[in-house]
């Protein structure tokens, strides 16, 4: 099997192919003497038009990663190192003003909570046109018809009336659609979606995910999809990065990750996805423990205390992220001394 896959494996990509190349991104909070590393040497690529997943439990550093790339972390109280090269420019080293000119135009972001992400006192139309006025020099009058079309495109019924509505007059799903419209108003090449459906009803979640996938596929926008829910990733991502305690522990193409998870953490996450064929009322078996009982990565594997199959080495040495035998659809990176194999699983 592995001899076959070697042939299919794409040639290692040069950084030049990537729309966004994140390298060694590290974010520390707190005092210099006693820092807390929320993101710890994260590297990944996003190619044009690609959908890349960033998956992990709450608190593993997903939002901080995206905020660091967007230049949206607070100015004080944190230290960022590493780089995020977007179309040849390192976003991390840009000045406030330069980054401001790119946000909304080249890279955009949508957030978890559509209710509080809209300004409660401004009608929707003005919020949508604001970004067009800002980056494309349009007057509000000129931008309004386009805003209308945009709302229609994201599936908001009766857009003419909605333009005059205030956020509280819209349902949660409609608000997230509006926020997607705003993020895509200037046709950015990269969109970061940070848990865009977490605050929504299950039925609405699927609609929003479909919409998002369709929109980025149509426009060729690359998407970083952030979620704690592997089920969300399953339907849409080309490549998935699994994050644990600020570090990537496994990266693989979607099918490879789902069909053949190697990291015990990934395996555990997969086990906690509800399945249609599981008996009703059966308890899901999520990964026991929580990120809070981390060991630091410095001298051990941070996942070891929760791991289903730790070996002595896991408690003495910190594993590196290394390329292992590739999957069917692409290369695979793994940070584990004792990975899951087909036999153990």
């Amino acid at each position, binding site marked *: 099997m592995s001899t076959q896959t070697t042939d299919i494996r794409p040639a290692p990509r040069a950084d030049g192919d990537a729309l966004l190349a994140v390298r060694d991104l590290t974010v520390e909070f707190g005092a210099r003497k006693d820092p807390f590393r929320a993101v710890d040497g994260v590297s990944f690529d996003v190619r044009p038009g690609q959908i890349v997943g960033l998956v992990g*439990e*709450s*608190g593993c550093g997903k939002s901080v990663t995206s905020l660091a790339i*967007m230049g*949206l972390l607070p100015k004080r109280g944190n230290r960022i190192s590493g780089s995020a090269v977007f179309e040849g420019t390192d976003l991390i080293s840009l000045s406030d003003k330069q980054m*401001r*000119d*790119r*946000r*909304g*135009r080249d890279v*955009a*972001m*949508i*957030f*978890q*909570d559509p*209710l*509080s*992400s*809209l*300004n*409660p*006192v*401004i009608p929707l139309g003005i919020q949508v046109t*604001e*970004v067009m006025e*800002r*980056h494309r020099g349009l007057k509000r009058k000129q931008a309004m018809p386009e805003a209308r079309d945009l709302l229609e495109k994201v599936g908001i019924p009766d857009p003419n009336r909605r333009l005059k509505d205030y956020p*509280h007059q819209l349902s*949660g799903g409609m608000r997230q659609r509006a*926020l997607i419209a*705003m*993020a895509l108003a200037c046709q950015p090449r990269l969109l970061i979606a940070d*848990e865009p459906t*977490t*605050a*929504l009803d299950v039925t609405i979640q699927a609609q929003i995910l479909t919409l998002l996938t369709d929109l980025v596929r149509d426009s060729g926008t690359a998407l970083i999809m952030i979620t*704690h829910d592997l089920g969300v990733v399953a339907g849409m991502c080309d490549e998935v990065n699994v994050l644990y305690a600020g570090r990537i522990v496994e990266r693989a193409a979607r099918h490879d990750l789902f069909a053949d998870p190697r990291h015990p953490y990934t395996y555990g996450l997969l086990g906690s996805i509800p399945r249609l064929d599981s008996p009703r009322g059966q308890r899901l078996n999520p990964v026991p423990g929580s990120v809070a009982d981390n060991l630091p990565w410095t001298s051990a594997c941070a996942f070891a205390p929760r791991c289903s199959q730790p070996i002595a080495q896991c408690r003495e040495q910190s594993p590196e992220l290394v390329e292992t035998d590739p999957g069917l659809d692409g290369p695979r990176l793994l940070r584990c001394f004792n990975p899951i194999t087909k036999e153990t699983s």
Partner: protein
Amino acid sequence: MAAMNLNRKKQRVDELAATTGARVEGNVDAGGIKDAEGVSLLASAWRRLRRNPAFLIGAVVVVLFVLVALFAPVLTGHDPSTRYLIGEVSQQNNPVPKARPGFPLGGDPVGRDLYARLVFGARNTLLVAVLATLTGFVGGLILGSLAGAFGGWVDSVVMRVVDIMLSLPSLLLAFSIAALFGRASQWSVILAVGIAQIPIFARLLRGAMMAQRHSDHVLAARSLGVKPGSIVLRHMLPNSLSPVLVQATMVVATSIIDAAALSYIGAGNADDTQPEWGQMLGQAQNLIDSYPHLAVYPAICIIVVALGFTLMGESLREALDPKSRR
């Protein structure tokens, strides 16, 4: 003592400021269940207000007061500055005319219609209170937005000054400012009372703006590249105003009382052709032993109206405070 007073004031103001802004703190990744009430915070506040007797009483008093002020000429046929009963005052050794047909409350010591003066007094009282509140509001708006928008050393400097002002009782501050004006007039009273209210508004607005700075919708606007100026003016400021409006309601009451107090200690407007309740009260103090009613009427008006504004403001504050919601 002064320090305790300052801390109490600060705490009150800060709690009010916290009724706006950053709703989501920390991680809500797993939860996803949202406060359904959040959908229309104002609507739910209104629902609670409608059933609150304190608010209703306050609102009725305030509305009546404003109506009297607006329609003063309809409520009395007399002019407040004409000395209708001057003949009686100069003839007799009893200087204050008694009640009689057409003069339900009698006259004042120079023969003017006391009832007409009270009715017209509502006008100037309202004018002084509203303009003083506006002065405090605008001053506080400028200082508070500066501090809240820029943060850093601008914030430190502005708030240090504001805290020093806040540590003085507002009346003492108003009196000191009034003393700076050579001759007292209606305008000096308005300015003195208004400036004394600036620190409260400033601290309040700054607190509300700080909360807005870390709110989700400000982050979302920043993620679209919206410029700092627009962030402050379109996204932070309009959302910071509700606690300020609540405070303004209560400051109207304080202004009425402070203006009266200034008159009482002789720093008020000396020109009494256009009466004002505080001024009437101040002038009545010489005759308070023989003619207490001259002081009692304006005093009652002041107390009732100030109470009305305070009741309304307090119930608004409670209604908007998330802690009191259930």
